[in-house]
């Protein structure tokens, strides 16, 4: 076992992690630990764009962007954070351009902008051109540009190092009002080197979580195989609460049956959705902005069309994305990758045929609670000194109950940058927290147990059953009955998880073993997600309860906060404590959400 010492350790090398690393690396001794190679991160799969009110092609301003973000999130957004994001969006885009990002350009040579779902002019009057983009590979360009700049700044990467535990200590402390409490402090992380199978401890003054989401809880997802909720699960096990975990975004246009993402840019560029009757059904659900309504509304409308018998295909289980009225040259220039996906994976030619699509699990709005400095909270207001989170793993909360398209590429850049700066500044003025005795014990024991287990269960089977039940019961329509069904299944699978066998007993590149560890993360996060969904007896944003179809501001205009606590019980599940946190309002009063 080796012990390393760095001022700042960043966990994850997608957009948020590398944006943080560029800042932190220039200010403090920084290591980036990533379970993949940096350029494999799923930021690279983002397609459509990154919104900022540059006003390069039409009138726009950041206040409108803030409003759209708040309304898009069905008012569960912390408005101070949304304001920071929309304001700093402009510099975030310009930073990337100066780093070399090849944005599409206007005839005058400025960064071009296009329409995207939920982004409007003057508080909902009409769709606005706000998304800066590079064809339909904006995420790819962001990931490459950030990696290029990490190379430029000699950022130190530890590739294929899986972070499996967060090392914290607790100190007795007293609040201002005199109440005693346990103050958490971060001391470092425990990681596992895939190549050698060895444990490496990284002692650090600051730790930044930027490890992405958990889409693999579901079967149909646009997410990578590696998005297994590691960061959230590790923080949760270390006693950090998780916020708003019931809110999952289902992207309307996944390739039917496969879940592969087809960007909302397809609709931003003029594509529309049709049902089996050839009808542009979004005219009924969102008369003003139609196919460019926010994702939760479009996804639900699609699922409803299918449910009411107007789905397409032999099983009537998808709808169609129609681009056939667009010029092929326009499609080639603006949407080259996604049209290639349709050809490669479904054998459909988008020039002449509509593309089969259905909602696909895309994004976790919830995550590790942070404030606008990207500092992690151990309860509603207490910061854990030296611990930061940014990007999908975090919940700051700029997305509320439904994220607007492009706002995640923005989130990772704005809050990734902030996390990097604040983590480095904190480290410059702080001492190392002394490592507790044998901090690797939990991980070593867990790996040993998985290696030695001789049960009859297989990781692949349990994961597949988890994904099936989540697709069936926790997708765009939920009810007490379906959620409880999922919860019961998760309980059964957690039990069976203790009886698994890992076939690969080797030390080197043992991905069999790591998939078992990842399954543990998935099961924990699925449980938290379902318990949180059961508790929220209302419909808001991405969380739709058929038994409570309306938004209920009186009882539920609150963030959910779930804690791991052996003493507690929530919704009949032992070991979870439920609490709420107020939403931050600045200038917008909740209104009915119509488009």
């Amino acid at each position: 076992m080796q012990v390393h010492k760095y001022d700042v350790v960043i966990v994850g090398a997608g957009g948020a992690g590398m944006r943080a690393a560029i800042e932190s690396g220039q200010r403090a001794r920084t290591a980036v630990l990533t379970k993949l190679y940096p350029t494999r991160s799923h930021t690279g799969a983002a397609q459509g764009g990154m919104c900022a009110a540059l006003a390069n092609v039409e009138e726009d301003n950041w206040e409108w962007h803030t409003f759209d973000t708040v309304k898009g999130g069905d008012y569960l957004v912390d408005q101070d954070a949304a304001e920071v994001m929309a304001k700093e969006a402009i510099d975030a885009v310009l930073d990337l351009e100066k780093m070399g990002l090849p944005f599409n350009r206007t005839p005058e040579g400025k960064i071009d902008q296009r329409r995207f779902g939920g982004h409007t002019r003057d508080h909902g009057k009409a769709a606005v051109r706000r998304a800066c983009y590079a064809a339909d590979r904006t995420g790819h360009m962001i990931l490459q540009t950030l990696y290029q700049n990490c190379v430029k700044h000699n950022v130190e990467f530890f590739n294929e190092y899986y972070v499996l535990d967060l090392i914290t200590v607790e100190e007795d402390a007293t609040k201002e009002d005199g109440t005693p409490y346990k103050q958490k402090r971060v001391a470092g992380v425990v990681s596992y080197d895939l190549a050698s199978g060895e444990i490496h401890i990284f002692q650090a003054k600051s730790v930044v979580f930027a490890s992405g989401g958990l889409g693999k809880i579901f079967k149909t997802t646009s997410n990578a195989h590696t998005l297994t909720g590691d960061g959230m699960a590790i923080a949760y096990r270390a006693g950090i609460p998780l916020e708003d975990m019931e809110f999952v975004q289902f992207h309307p246009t996944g390739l039917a049956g496969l879940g592969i993402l087809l960007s909302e840019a397809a609709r931003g560029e003029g594509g529309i959705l049709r049902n089996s009757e050839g009808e542009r059904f979004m005219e009924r659900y969102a008369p003003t902005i139609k196919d460019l309504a926010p994702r939760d509304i479009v996804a639900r409308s699609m699922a409803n069309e299918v449910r009411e018998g107007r789905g397409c295909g032999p099983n009537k289980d998808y709808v169609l994305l129609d681009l056939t009225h667009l010029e092929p040259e326009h499609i080639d220039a603006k949407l080259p990758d996604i049209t290639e996906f349709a050809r490669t994976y479904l054998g459909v030619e988008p020039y002449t045929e509509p593309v089969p699509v259905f909602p696909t699990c895309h994004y976790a709005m919830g995550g590790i609670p942070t404030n606008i400095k990207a500092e992690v909270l151990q309860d509603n207001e207490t910061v854990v000194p030296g611990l930061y989170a940014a990007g999908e793993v975090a919940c700051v909360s700029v997305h509320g109950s439904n994220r607007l398209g492009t706002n995640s590429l923005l989130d990772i850049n704005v809050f990734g940058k902030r996390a990097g700066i604040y983590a480095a500044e904190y480290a410059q003025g702080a001492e190392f927290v002394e490592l507790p005795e044998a901090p690797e014990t939990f991980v070593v024991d867990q790996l040993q147990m998985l290696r030695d287990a001789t049960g009859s269960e297989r990781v692949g089977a349990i994961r597949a059953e988890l994904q099936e039940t989540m697709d069936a019961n926790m997708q765009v329509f939920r009810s007490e009955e379906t959620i409880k069904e999922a919860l019961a299944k998760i309980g059964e699978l957690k039990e069976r998880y203790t009886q698994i066998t890992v076939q690969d007993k080797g030390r080197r590149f043992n991905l069999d073993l790591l998939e078992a560890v990842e399954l543990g993360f998935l099961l924990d996060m699925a449980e938290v997600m379902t318990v949180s969904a059961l508790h929220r007896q209302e419909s808001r944003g991405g969380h739709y309860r058929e038994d409570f179809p309306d938004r209920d501001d009186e009882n539920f205009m609150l963030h959910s906060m779930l804690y791991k606590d052996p003493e507690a019980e929530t919704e009949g599940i032992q070991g979870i404590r439920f609490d709420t946190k107020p939403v931050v309002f600045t200038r917008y009063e909740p209104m009915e959400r119509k488009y």
Partner: protein
Amino acid sequence: MSTATVENEPASTVDLGESGDGAGAIESFEVTLKVRRYDPERAEDAWWDEWTLTMYGTDRVLDALHKVKWEIDGSLTFRRSCAHGICGSDAMRINGRNRLACKTLLKDLDTSKPITVEAIKGLPIEKDLIVDMEPFFQSYREIMPFLINNSPAPTAERLQSPEDRERFDDTTKCILCAACTSSCPVFWTDGQYFGPAAIVNAHRFIFDSRDDAGDMRLEVLNDKEGVWRCRTTFNCTDACPRGIEVTKAIQEVKTAIITRSL
């Protein structure tokens, strides 16, 4: 831009014809997967394993590998992440050709014969289909793969015409999967050669109107392990899963070295 508002609103309802019905049920078929295994913890030499699997019309080689790993032999080891050809993790040699396993549909291969899968060539094999990528990224880093612009930055963006942006568009698509470099016969015999991917990434900056360091990069690639090692076999272009005209990019770099007369 005034063009923004001139758009034809598509019809509210159209006759879908057959596209509303979709193609029939997805067909299943048998396929034999033959994988070259290597694990120094288990045996000194590499060996081949074969599995016969029932797969479906939309399945890719990656699905077959997963089926083996998840249902039959958990020790089968390979990298993968996004599973739709954008992260570049799963470049491998499939029936003797470099491809991404997640972008290669089984039905597009000859399933009457076993499908062979091997690690990409020219990089040290670590375990099964996993190779050491470090030499590959080392070459990439040497061409200074980042924008260098020494003039003071404007407050807004640097301007670039759509034509200037288009000039290097093709090479911005690279996902660093190494399919090109590890298909290059020169790279197989001379591991010091920069290889196509590094040259592609140099091209991306050399032809970017905002970049000031083109000459420095050309100097690096004028080295004896640089572009002149390329023998124009087009393997790299054939291998690129992103459809980048790799050989053409290398040729353009060669021409630039000559015309900028270093």
